[in-house]
């Protein structure tokens, strides 16, 4: 077998040596180099066309007064005026605070619950694999479709949520509205997001817990370190890089949050749950202030990208320790 393979190869070589270059390539197949570019090019072309080109276009639009419902109106370059308007607008800062409230509280709750659950699952009780999969379900589902259905559960007159709360606490079920109340609504979106994404943090923490080699604990046991001390000096530091990774992904995703909240509260009541993305959608596709909203999009993009970069540097430092 190897003999024939060898002889065919040397035949190919011999033929290749005596044929002109274009023919040679056909005999030996494409060269690795051209194959590499041939394989990568389609992805690059697609990303350039659907990500980079539009991004540059957004940047361009952000310096204009363009309104896409009036495509024939005179296009004026207004420099940084859009950026100036946005950064000095109190409403925008209020929206940013709403977004920050949402991002921070969802992360805090999801980290606590997610880590707690992972810690418990790691005790490897009987049937833990089955229950882990069951817990994971909410995060795989469509946020929009699920957000829509939560409006049904939160109905003050008939909803299951109000009923359950009143069943356990005795509060009159018709006395509070999770979606209609300006004080409760910001917490309602935190609650649904936590319901949905705690499994995500849990799954990553679980990977962290499972990566800790057992002999570290055995050594600690020999040194008679208490369980409490083992938890704080071994478990927490070893899981931290994983936890930070989960926080990074959740932070980015929730800063961009649109679908679930748009269907659950659509930013209301008033603008108490109007996250940055929802504001952007309103400015761009309801008020048609294309230039203005392009500038806002760029500001959001730069914020996310910058924050993520700083964070990744911190993450690397933690990993090195």
């Amino acid at each position, binding site marked *: 077998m190897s003999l024939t393979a060898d002889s065919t190869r040397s035949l190919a070589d011999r033929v290749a040596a005596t044929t002109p270059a274009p023919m040679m390539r056909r005999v030996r197949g494409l060269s690795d180099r051209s194959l590499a570019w041939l394989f990568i090019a389609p992805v690059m072309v697609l990303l350039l066309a659907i990500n980079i080109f539009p991004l540059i276009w957004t940047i361009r639009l952000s310096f204009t007064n363009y309104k896409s419902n009036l495509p024939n109106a005179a296009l004026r370059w207004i420099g940084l005026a859009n950026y100036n308007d946005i950064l000095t607008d109190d409403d925008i800062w209020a929206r940013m605070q709403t977004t920050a409230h949402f991002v921070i509280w969802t992360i805090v709750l999801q980290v606590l619950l997610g880590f707690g659950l992972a810690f418990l699952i790691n005790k490897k009780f009987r049937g833990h694999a089955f229950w882990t999969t069951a817990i994971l379900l909410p995060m795989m589902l469509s946020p929009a479709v699920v957000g829509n259905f*939560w409006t049904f559960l939160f109905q003050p007159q008939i909803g299951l949520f109000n009923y359950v709360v009143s069943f356990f606490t005795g509060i009159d079920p018709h006395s509070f509205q999770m979606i209609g109340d300006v004080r409760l609504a910001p917490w309602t979106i935190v609650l649904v997001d936590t319901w949905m994404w705690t499994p995500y943090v849990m799954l990553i923490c679980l990977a962290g817990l499972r990566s800790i080699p057992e002999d570290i604990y055995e050594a600690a046991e020999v040194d008679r370190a208490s369980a409490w001390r083992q938890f704080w000096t071994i478990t927490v530091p070893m899981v931290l890089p994983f936890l930070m990774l989960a926080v990074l992904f959740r932070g980015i995703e929730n800063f961009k949050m649109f679908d679930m909240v748009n269907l659950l509260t659509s930013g209301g009541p008033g603008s108490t749950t109007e996250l940055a993305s929802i504001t952007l959608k309103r400015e761009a596709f309801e008020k048609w202030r294309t230039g203005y909203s392009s500038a806002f999009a760029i500001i959001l993009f730069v914020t*996310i990208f910058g924050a993520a970069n700083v964070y990744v540097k911190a993450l690397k430092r933690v990993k090195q320790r």
Partner: protein
Amino acid sequence: MSAAAHSVVEASPRAKTVAGTLVVLYAVVTLVPLLWIGATAFKSGPDSISYPPKVVFEPTLEGWVNLFTVRSRQSPEFLHNLPPPTTWWDRLVRSHDMVIAGPSKVVQRFGNSLVVGFGSTFLAVLLGTLAAYAFSRFRIPLADDLLFFILSTRMMPPIAVAIPIYLMYRQLGLTDTWLGLILLYTAVNVSLSVWLLKGFIDEIPREYEEAALVDGYTRLQAFRRVVLPQAVTGIAATSIFCLIFSWNEYAFALLLTSGNAQTMPPFIPFIIGEGGQDWPAVAAATTLFLMPIVVFTVLLRKHLLRGITFGAVRR
């Protein structure tokens, strides 16, 4: 393997019981909303909005019939003069003084979700496999920068490019078409697909291909006959992740489709009956829409971690 009975890492039976109870409790609480969706799909209209909420109820397929049909209310005389109903769904609708006026749009919307989902998944995985193989096996100048660039497109908020894409699609006539959504979802998914598949292909020993090359295979043949069969599990897992994303996506579907190519997520909230949202029908649509994902989640459970972290965490 350390001896299980005396291992310091093995939890005590009591700790296990406590942990198990708490986890099961959490699981049950978080699954209640999902079970409630499933239950509501089989309730009658009045049962679905009764208070206190009904846990025990007489199941009916009313919601499903309402989901798939458009009905009109008729006077008793009109109904009396009609020939008797021929099917069970006819009879169900007639019992509410209504007649079926025709099929609803749900089948078409579901079909759109399937076409867009599978179309974009196929493209994203095809392009992703080629690029991942190249990144894994060939020396490419600035490979790390290119890979980071591919990843960073996923970090970009869709809103940052939504406006020009909307304008571009309007210009090119891609608004409200299958092709438009497929291209867009492919572009979003391709970053995930390259990163995940690169991880999977990295794990296939190079020796297999090298042996094939020595045996006289060309690179392309080695890729097709040696690497691809080895990467099948990875390709399948990646495909499911891409499919789930396209299936669930809402923002761009809302923005770029209206009638023809609209997928399920923007459609479901607008399933309405006579007095606002028809909850049993919405629940039926939601159940129909979520079931494939539940099945996929169970199939994927071993690769979930990898998928949700772009291959950063492997088990």
